[in-house]
């Protein structure tokens, strides 16, 4: 994986500037957005953005930090979503946060099982074997009615979202719920990648044999990466199903979704935390812009089929262009711009 070495955070000293931006964003997200956002902005942009960001964050741990390419992310999202549905349905009065954690753990278990081949396989062989997860999980969820409480087409509906007696079913409520989950998981992930375990991930990615030589438990590290990554992706699946769509079927978690999450981290930036968010924002907003631009330029000529195809072409071209020009993704572009601005202001 062509990811450059990460700048190590200053150990011991708390770099205040690193936390200024996320804190400011959180304040805006919690206190300004709910007041000014229309329900369209919440439902069509912010909720999918939050769920996709979290899924991309999970995949970035596995692919960006630990170097294990996975093409089965949507399967782990589905595992999380359906697990949450069943825990909620079958255990009376289970609090929502507990459901979320249990769903994440279920996805982690599924992820660990499908991560087992990584102990023997590398590179493309592993990537292809993760497709097994993609097809198997989707098949199992459609085939066995138990998972969807015997719904004939495997569709599940979101339950009432109650936390500590408070209902979170309005658009704003669901947004705040998803935001809180994403904020907590992101904070934990930042902790993780700066911990010894995170360093182990990077060591395994950069040179597995060398990592083994210096005493990194390679097999355990890989499985741990699969487990944690799947946990996060599973929780993202719950957000996708419960806070964004409210009604999902297994077919919604298909291979295209897996690729979409992979593209998010490529475009956003591998092995960066904000890359997941930048990429997800791009993937949610870009199709909307393209469809607006299309109908503005061509009026009625631009039907949804043509739009879909041109969207595919543009996304494909953008991926290739980014890989050529800036393999570290949009987040590296931001860095470059920031550095240039800094120079202009006379800072080193």
């Amino acid at each position: 994986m062509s990811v450059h070495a990460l700048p190590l955070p200053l150990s011991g000293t708390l770099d205040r500037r690193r936390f200024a931006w996320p804190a400011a964003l959180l304040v805006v997200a919690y206190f300004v957005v709910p007041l000014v956002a229309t329900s369209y902005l919440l439902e069509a942009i912010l909720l999918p953005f939050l769920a996709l960001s979290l899924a991309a964050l999970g995949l970035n741990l596995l692919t960006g930090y630990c170097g294990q390419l996975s093409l089965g992310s949507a399967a782990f999202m589905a595992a999380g979503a359906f697990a949450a549905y069943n825990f909620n349905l079958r255990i009376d009065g289970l609090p929502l946060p507990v459901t979320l954690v249990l769903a994440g753990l279920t996805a982690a278990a599924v992820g660990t099982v499908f991560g087992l081949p990584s102990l023997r396989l590398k590179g493309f062989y592993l990537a292809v074997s993760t497709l097994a997860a993609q097809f198997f999980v989707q098949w199992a969820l459609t085939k066995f009615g138990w998972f969807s409480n015997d719904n004939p087409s495997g569709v599940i509906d979101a339950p009432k979202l109650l936390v500590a007696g408070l209902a979170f079913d309005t658009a704003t409520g669901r947004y705040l719920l998803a935001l809180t989950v994403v904020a907590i998981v992101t904070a934990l992930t930042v902790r993780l990648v700066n911990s010894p375990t995170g360093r182990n991930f990077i060591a395994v990615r950069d040179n597995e044999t060398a990592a083994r030589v210096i005493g990194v438990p390679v097999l355990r590290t890989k499985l741990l990466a699969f487990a944690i990554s799947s946990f996060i992706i599973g929780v993202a699946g719950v957000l996708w199903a419960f806070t964004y769509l409210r009604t999902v079927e297994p077919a919604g978690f298909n291979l295209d979704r897996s690729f979409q999450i992979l593209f998010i981290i490529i475009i956003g930036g591998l092995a960066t935390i904000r890359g997941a968010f930048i990429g997800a924002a791009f993937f949610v907003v870009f199709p909307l812009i393209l469809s607006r631009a299309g109908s503005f330029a061509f009026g009625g000529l631009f039907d949804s089929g043509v739009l879909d195809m041109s969207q595919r072409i543009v996304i494909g071209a953008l991926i290739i262009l980014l890989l050529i020009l800036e393999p570290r993704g949009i987040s590296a572009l931001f860095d470059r711009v920031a550095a240039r601005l800094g120079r202009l202001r006379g800072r080193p």
Partner: protein
Amino acid sequence: MEWYDFLFFIEVLVGGLLSGVMYSLVAIGFVLIYKTSGVLNFAQGAMLLFAALTFVSLVERGIPFALALAITLLIMVALGFAIERTVLRPLVNRSPMTLFMATLGLSYIIEGAAQLLWGTQVHGLDLGIDDTPFEVYGVFISKFDLVAAGLAAAMVGGLSAFFHWTRIGLAFRAVADDQFAALAVGLRLNRIWGTVWTAAGFVALVAGLLWGARLGVQFSLSLVVLKALPVLVLGGFDSILGAIVGGLIVGAGEKLAEVYLGPFVGGGIEGWFAYALALAFLLVRPGGLFGKKLVERV
């Protein structure tokens, strides 16, 4: 086992082996590119769709069969060299994963372009081979499958001969063996890659026509890559022989599992069975059946 049951088993097995040849056809295109440039070309399925769709659309516009074939082939040549120029050359010396992701992007572009150009409706494709099964010692065999298998055999024979007895084939093998050494003795890597992608385009065309005649030419044609990937994993990414044997194993295994195992788990297992089979093999031989052994160095 009863005689009738045995016959039925043979019939399923033969049907499976023959459909496996169809998987091999797709897999060979991957192997060609992987061998010479180390790229797992996910866009192979998209190229297959593009070739078949172009051909069918030309034929539907009244262009005779042979001319349409020639035009499609020319377009695939242009596509091969265009890909080399715009995607591979700027990405030279990048990691295999970067190149793989680039081909993912490429597959989006080609799929989108093919359908934007020729429309999204399903086209029927008649190659003039009838698909009626005939009987050999009480076992029904599809004639179409036999023709497909024959074509695949001819193509593999042709490709092997090409690799072994032509100058450019020798250059291909040199590049596959050691890119730097090949460059050092003065081989033109760019032109060779362009040619290899063209060859893969030709394989895509043949596979696209056969699969198109089977399934109808439509978007789902590009999904046959998903059938070819377990074949590749099984056979090893860099072995044409592996692609053939892998295809046969996957085809036979899939059909047998569907018939004998399917009823116990509710059917529909063909979507993932090939992957499970490939994984089981891989756990024993992580480089595939015929793949190169990896030597690790720090």
